[in-house]
């Protein structure tokens, strides 16, 4: 009760809601919360590095026994950009799925009842997931040396830019899924149904050449293909590799024999990002 004595100052009621400034502040607040939670959860940072490291060092090393790469290029080098993509994929989707967690523990309601437009909440969440997944990817990039990939500043910068773009698209995808999920248990089902196929079809673990036509068709439908290919292309640009090796390890993505330029591939990813973000916003405005 003693505390009550000093509480005379009552703030004037401010009208929030409806203005762009309020909504942008909402975006920032939701984004910052993602960062705080990421920074606090050191264990998660470490554990989510375990899977890509296992893929790169154990699977990459193990498969290189049978997967014969042209001389001068190790299989680990081939896999490296794919595993970068995998790190971003899983971190983004997991980060978006925290909405399901928020729903279960009530915090989603705290956000949804605020006098802030729903689109701002969704955008903040997507930007948060993007930042977190990109940071996680950057941490993984530190292992480039273990895969005989040089630490070229320009290359690293280009990789970070692509990671950010794909992380945004994937978080938007995750948020869209999360809008339809009521329980945490459904999450692993979603991962099995959407995320694993996306990962395997993206060319992250094997080059997309000489595949049976049905598999070839599926890899072209997978949007992640158009993010993994630029990652790999940029890494190989900074290696000195014989032309024959390039053709088999960095074949690019072709439509009817026409090889898509990197710019167009990234354009496809950006278009997916916009569509998924829009869909996620619509899904949450109905909640």
């Amino acid at each position, binding site marked *: 009760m003693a505390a009550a004595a000093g509480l005379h*100052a009552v703030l004037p009621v401010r009208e929030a809601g409806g203005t762009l400034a309020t909504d942008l502040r909402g975006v920032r607040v939701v984004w910052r919360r993602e960062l705080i939670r990421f920074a606090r959860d050191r264990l998660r940072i470490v554990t989510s590095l375990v899977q890509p490291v296992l893929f790169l060092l154990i699977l990459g090393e193990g498969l290189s026994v049978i997967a014969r790469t042209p001389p001068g290029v190790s299989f680990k080098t081939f896999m490296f950009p794919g595993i970068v993509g995998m790190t971003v994929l899983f971190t983004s989707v997991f980060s978006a799925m925290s909405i399901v967690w928020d729903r279960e523990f009530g915090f989603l309601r705290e956000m949804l009842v605020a006098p802030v437009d729903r689109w701002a909440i969704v955008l903040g969440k997507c930007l948060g997931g993007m930042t977190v997944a990109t940071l996680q990817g950057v941490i993984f990039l530190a292992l480039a040396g273990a895969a005989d990939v040089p630490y070229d500043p320009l290359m690293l910068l280009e990789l970070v830019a692509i990671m950010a773009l794909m992380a945004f698209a994937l978080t938007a995808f995750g948020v869209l899924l999360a809008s339809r999920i009521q329980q945490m248990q459904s999450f692993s089902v979603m991962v099995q149904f959407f995320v694993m196929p996306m990962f395997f079809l993206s060319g992250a673990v094997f080059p997309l050449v000489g595949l049976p036509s049905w598999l070839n068709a599926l890899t072209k439908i997978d949007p992640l293909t158009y993010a993994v290919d630029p990652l790999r292309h940029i890494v190989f640009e900074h290696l000195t590799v014989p032309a024959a090796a390039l053709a088999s390890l960095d074949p690019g993505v072709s439509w009817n024999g026409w090889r898509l330029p990197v710019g167009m591939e990234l354009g496809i990813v950006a278009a997916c990002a916009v569509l998924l973000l829009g869909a996620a916003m619509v899904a949450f405005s109905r909640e």
Partner: protein
Amino acid sequence: MHARRAGREPARTGIGPVPIEASVPTIPEPAVAVQHLRKRFGDFDAVRDVSFEVAAGETFGLLGPNGAGKTTTVSMLSTLLAPTSGRAKVAGADVVTERGRVRSRIGLVFQDPTLDEYLTAEENLRFHAELYGVPAATLDARLDQILDMVELSDRRHDVVQNFSGGMRRRLEIGRGLIHSPRVLFLDEPTVGLDPQTRAHIWTYIESLRQSEQITILLTTHYMDEAEHCDRIAIIDNGEIVTLDSPDALKARVGRDRLEIAVPDPEAAIAALGERFGIEATVSEGMVAFYVSHGEEFVPRLFAESGLTIHSVRMSRPTLDDVFMAYTGRTIRDAEASASDHLRESARRFARRR
């Protein structure tokens, strides 16, 4: 509890608009005005035709068993649910057409926790304050003030995960206030807490209305908590059965309640009706009825009724009796039946969505 109520009186007349006509020259707009509010879930009427007004500065309670429609009413008033029909204005804004305005003018403390357990107490408050547009210049001072009020200043940098149930609830109440809302909704603010913590929470709520000059609308199914309110609406089966101050409600019942344990309740009810013209009912295994002067009636009961009576319990009117008088059952009896029905309906409704 009564001592505290008595102690509060002078302060209330000082700041509160409670005797409205005396302190305010023009009739102010009520903080909450509800007209014929209804909500249907499928074929279940959760709230049917509820109307009431809450004056600015008043603490108003919705009292009723679980499943009576209290939370549904609060959800509609806080714009979380769209009413099926009827109108409501909260802090001067319409809950259907001016949802954004309503939301920025109210504070909400839900029955279920809505804190981020991975953030610290201060981060939870900051998140909320910025979302509600508390100006950066005043935010730090306001944070200190709120943390002081809910006595969590020394834990402000602790992650909420490590907080007890009472601390969490205090933090939630503080959070609901940080943007200086005009109306604070508290949905079952003390449910699931131990009695000591419940009493503690009430101390805060009482100090709040003085320091923040705020209108509070709360729901509870604890009779003793309803005593803290200026006025209470007793709600049952989605309808308001009566509405008045706690004292006025008790005065209306005005009679003592007697409960007797007998081997054959049916026979006892018949005998009471025949000999004394008393209408008795079975409640929680006892035969219960009301008489004007209990202490004089008990000797007559033994002398004249001829019943075998194992025990007698007499009580002065409480809000429980008010509830009993208006609904024909105790709040616990009501909960046993109503909550089953509501849970079943809610399940069916959820499945359909």
